[in-house]
């Protein structure tokens, strides 16, 4: 069973990888090689950093069975906050960057604490904090755009490149590697997955689910803060629209990447690959000069297809799990027709869901 699941996870990463390679090849051919010239490679990777970071931010909350609607609002608010203190209060740029990351982490922590203390559904809590943060963001910057000439050192970093690939992309990759290590090899990471996979079992095993929820939200906010910092470095300025289009893509990457919505599994590599695919769709859109709205359409259709396909696989896995003498925790709910049943079985049977 476990071997089968492992191969499933790997085959999903494999197919995502193949899609990336094929997509790159197609784009390269159709643009007559123009896609591979240094400038467009730099652009491609520069604007891939934020999708990866917010996809991972969402993935962390999904891993404990929560979700974070405030991804874009946290990022937007953090970048505007940093922009305002640098531009208006004369704070050094590096301090502004740290402030952006910290503000993100604090906002995430607030989300987590609100969920745990009030016991309100995480969906509503993050919906409410999203609204509040959007209001604060608009209150901070209003209609103006704070130009990146206010933080030349950060803008420099945004343009710098290492081995021909922008430094900010390496930042995103580093975050992904750290995250992968945390989920695979640290006690905290394993606890998050345990809480997400089966809260009751986790509690019985001595894991505090409340703590997992708070940690996950705080880490998610931290990543949004890093995305805010990357935005400051890579965009020509920050304004009230920063973060506005993050929400949908933050869900697209982990879902296409194979993260279960019910918690208990993560797929760092899958999320990164899926973010790359979405970025490729966007590049193709620019290449063929289609309207930007096409990207949404394609991504929406792909997400629908992915969840439907994933569900079919889960049902099959659940059936496979119930035909042989059921082992361990999945024994109780073989006839479960509800959406969660199959996923639960899968999630409990897959404590080693961390890959990449």
């Amino acid at each position, binding site marked *: 069973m476990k071997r089968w699941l492992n191969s499933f996870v790997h085959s999903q990463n494999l197919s995502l990888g193949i899609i990336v390679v094929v997509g790159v090849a197609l784009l390269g051919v159709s643009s007559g090689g123009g896609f591979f010239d240094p400038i467009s490679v730099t652009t491609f990777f520069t604007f891939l950093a934020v999708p990866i970071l917010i996809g991972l931010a969402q993935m962390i909350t*999904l891993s404990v*069975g*929560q*979700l974070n609607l405030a991804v874009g609002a946290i990022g937007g608010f953090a970048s505007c906050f940093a922009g305002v203190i640098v531009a208006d209060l004369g704070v050094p740029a590096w301090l502004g960057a740290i402030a952006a990351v910290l503000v993100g982490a604090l906002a995430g922590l607030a989300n987590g604490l*609100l*969920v*745990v203390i*009030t*016991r*309100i*559904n*995480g*969906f*509503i*809590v993050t*919906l*409410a*904090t*999203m*609204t*509040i943060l*959007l*209001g*604060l963001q*608009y*209150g901070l910057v209003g209609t103006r755009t704070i130009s990146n000439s206010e933080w030349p050192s950060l803008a420099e970093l945004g343009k710098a490149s290492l081995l021909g690939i922008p430094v900010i992309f390496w930042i995103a990759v580093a975050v992904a590697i750290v995250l992968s290590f945390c989920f695979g090899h640290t006690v905290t990471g394993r606890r998050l997955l345990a809480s997400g996979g089966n*809260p*009751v079992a986790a509690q019985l095993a001595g894991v505090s*689910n409340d703590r997992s929820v708070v940690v996950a939200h705080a880490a998610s906010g931290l990543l949004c803060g890093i995305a805010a910092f990357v935005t400051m470095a890579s965009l020509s300025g920050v304004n009230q629209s920063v973060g506005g289009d993050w929400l*949908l893509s933050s*869900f*697209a990457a982990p*879902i296409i990447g194979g993260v279960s*919505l*019910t*918690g208990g599994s993560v797929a760092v590599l899958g999320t990164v690959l899926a973010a790359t695919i979405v970025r490729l769709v966007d590049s193709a859109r620019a290449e063929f000069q289609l*309207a930007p*709205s*096409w*990207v*949404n*359409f*394609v*991504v*929406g*259709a792909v*997400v*629908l297809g992915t*969840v*439907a396909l*994933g*569900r079919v696989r889960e*049902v099959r896995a659940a059936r496979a799990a119930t035909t042989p003498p059921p082992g361990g925790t999945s024994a*109780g709910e073989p006839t479960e*027709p*509800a*959406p*969660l049943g*199959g996923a*639960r079985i899968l999630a409990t049977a897959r404590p080693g869901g961390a890959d990449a």
Partner: protein
Amino acid sequence: MTAQNRDDAPRTATRRPGAVRRFLATPRFFLIVLIIALVVVIGALKPSFFNGPFVIAPLLTSISIFTVVGLSQLVVMSVGHMNLAIGPMAAFGAMFAGMSFQLFGLPLWAGVVVGLLAGAAVGALSGWIIARTGVNSFIVTLAMSFALIGLVPTVYSWLTTGSAFTVKPDGLDVIGRASFATLCLGNVCGTNAIPIIVVPTIVTMAILGYLFTRTRIGRELLMTGSNVQAAELSGIPTSRRIILVHTLSGVLAALAGFLLAASTGSFTPGIGGEFMLQSFVGPILGGTLLAGGYVSITGTLLGITLTLLIRKGLDLFGVGIETLNILLGVILLIALSADRFRLIRTRRTRAAAAVAPPDDTGGDPHPTGPGADKKEEVSA
């Protein structure tokens, strides 16, 4: 006009605390008190608030539109689902209505029917995918909203030059902009403070109220919402009910989109852009449970009224729209926390009275993702 389906319904019936006392404990009562207080405060500080045609009528217009938006969310919430695509669905339905006016020259009623059918079609598609695959409604409707957000502006840019359908059939302005002052019986005319647009909303509320309180299907929906397995075991075709509510949600979203277009006078891809938050705030403030099994239609109207009243008040005092957002978020959190604490208190008193633990539809021990509630309780 509320409907519920809880295990403890018979128990409260035998104790009969009195209809009035029960009403005083509902969120609706607090909303009414708050709304009256706000009207008094705003009216006292800014007498211009009572200006019929310029303040009250626009306020009622937006209340009418957003109540339909809230109801669109309410019907899916009745089975414990959610619809994140209400805004794009509204844009989609309005697009078809506008298209049939501009390109095919259809009369008003036919265009409305086409628009509502279009909404029904996308709603049914979401519902079908959810019922067929069993994937969480959150993610299906999120993906649906992606797809529609992509599709709608593209179609507009294909078919129109200015990204808007502007042809108005006879009667569109009457629905969207006229007030009862234009309706006269003999010499007695209506007031110009009440727009005609309240009529479709009241009719919608009445139909939904009838559906949830008086019909078998309505009861089945609530039962599906409070416990899917139990509903399934009692012979309710839950998949069909799920498709039904999503279809209905699509229809209502399209209606809201059409009403908004009628009130602004043009059909644009921007319709529905601010529907998402309001669609949740209205029903939730009104006491509708996110987990399903309990809906409150008048509560939705009151919740929407409260938020729009606050918005109008802030407008009159010249406070920016960002403050409204901050306030809305805070109100939502406070309202729900208050609800939680009340629930915990009643549970304690009940436990003290040595009654079996109530079916707690609102509170899951481990706050998990959407739709992940309740089931925990059932299986644990």
